[in-house]
């Protein structure tokens, strides 16, 4: 079986996904609910993973607290700025992993022939692939981000709206970049390790103040590893909202999403099934 899907057809499939946006959202909501219920079935595992990630995030918070109490003026960032960076990034990654938790498995699914199932189902392949599992520890990130926001800022509905909006865009950038990294499997063969390294790179750069990086590295963070669009620009918007910068962020997000869809479907055209017969658990 060879997937003969042109980018144009893929784009049309995304715009009119089997009955329109509403049906696709219902599909997403049903998958999300089912994923959550499946994970809640193993309640102790669910709670321990969420608590584990929550503790992990708070330990990082503690590190930055200690760091800035020792070096208050280093890196041009304040403790508050760094914590905002963590709020936005944790919420962005959390949302991406909770809703599109399967994106990170695309490489292994393609490599092991598991993509055939998604090709046979009359749904948008990429969308279906991304939403079909949930990373439970994402809830730890989400709870951490909301708790840290509550601690950091006084109750301010307008600021909360800004944080939620930019974090949503951060989630979209993360997920799109993850799709791009995982799609390398179509071109390079089994490249899971490389894809994981690329994802580590964006997460690492996103959680350190951007003032540390200069010159060529900074350029890299706005282009090849778009950590700037995932966290630095969103944080700048939380610090001081600017409509022009927000428009630029929307544009950059749209470009990254377009690239992710284009690269995935260009890769999908090269995909050849191994005709693997398997039970889907």
């Amino acid at each position, binding site marked *: 079986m060879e997937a003969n899907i042109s980018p144009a057809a893929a784009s049309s499939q995304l715009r009119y996904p089997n009955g329109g946006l509403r049906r696709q959202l219902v599909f997403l909501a049903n998958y999300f609910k089912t994923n959550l219920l499946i994970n809640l079935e193993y309640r102790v595992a669910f709670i321990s993973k969420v608590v*584990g990630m929550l503790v992990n995030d708070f*330990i990082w918070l503690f*590190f930055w607290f200690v760091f800035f109490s020792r070096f208050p003026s*280093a890196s041009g960032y304040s403790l508050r700025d760094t914590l905002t960076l963590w709020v936005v990034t944790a919420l962005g990654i959390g949302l991406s992993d909770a809703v599109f938790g399967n994106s990170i498995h695309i490489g292994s699914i393609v490599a092991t022939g598991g993509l055939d199932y998604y090709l046979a189902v009359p749904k948008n392949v990429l969308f279906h692939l991304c939403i079909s599992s949930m990373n439970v520890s994402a809830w730890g990130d989400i709870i951490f981000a909301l708790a840290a926001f509550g601690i950091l800022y006084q109750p301010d509905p307008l600021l909360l709206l800004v944080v939620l909006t930019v974090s949503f865009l951060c989630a979209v950038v993360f997920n799109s970049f993850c799709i791009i990294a995982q799609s390398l499997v179509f071109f390079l063969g089994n490249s899971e390790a490389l894809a994981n390294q690329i994802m*580590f790179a964006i997460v690492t750069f996103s959680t350190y103040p951007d003032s*540390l990086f200069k010159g060529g590295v900074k350029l890299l963070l706005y282009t090849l590893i778009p950590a700037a669009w995932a966290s630095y620009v969103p944080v700048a918007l939380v610090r001081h909202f600017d409509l022009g910068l927000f428009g630029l962020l929307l544009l950059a997000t749209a470009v990254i999403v377009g690239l992710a869809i284009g690269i995935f479907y260009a890769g999908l055209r090269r995909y050849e099934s191994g005709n693997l017969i398997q039970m889907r658990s």
Partner: protein
Amino acid sequence: MAVAQPLKKSSTVGIRRIRKRFLKYWLAFVVSLRNNFAYLGEALSRICFLGLILFVLAQLWQTVYSSQGSQRLAGFSLNDIMWYLIFTETFTTTRPAFHLDIDREVRSGELAYTLARPYNYMWYQFAVFLGSRIVRMAISLVLAALIMLVLAGPPAFLRIENLLGGLWLFALAITIDFLAIFLLAIQSFWAEDTTAFILIYTRLTMILGGMLVPLDILPEPLASIAKALPFSYVMYSPAHLTVKFEWAELGEASLKLGITTLVLGALGLWVLSRVERRLSTNGG
């Protein structure tokens, strides 16, 4: 002559027994060592991540030193810190995820068959872990050192006592790290999922173990508390001794790490015996 013969015979038999007892672990270690040499690509992909982390931390510490306008912080030059980070980061990024194997074996029930085999489960896991750890650490350390030569220049501590003292403490630290993770992973016999325990342990060693910052640089009383806690034994103690060697520190750290190894080892064997008692198998 008549007395010496039986003594010689019994000592030979004793040595044979000991050899026989440890041969299986030695073979497991050698197989693990060879397996890890076979997957050098994986080791190289790991070095990409390590290189990235070292680059980010180099930027962070260069910024800190330039903002402080000082050549030394708590006795550490920038060069000292960068080489200290090589050891702590290599230690962290080359830790084999053997806890996932234990978790899988417990969940699938495979452990019942494994425990029935004629070896001690903990020592067998340790032999496999050690083979993997040594190859990963050696390759990463060499490549990371090359990266650090570019980022920070040659180390200022290249003396035989620094290297041998550091090697000795790292050997103990690797054992402690294994035993701590083994003890947490074997909890999967009682808990549904132990990955969160391991995550919290690794994060505690990250902050309180001095992975990102030498503990001397932390503000007081946090620095003293962190140094007193066992989390500091796995990374801070060996990395600090390698960079800033002192005979007194070697003696003190050897004692602390040695006692911790013995306590955790005894605890591991005791927990394993409880696991074996709890184990029930259904034939079929």
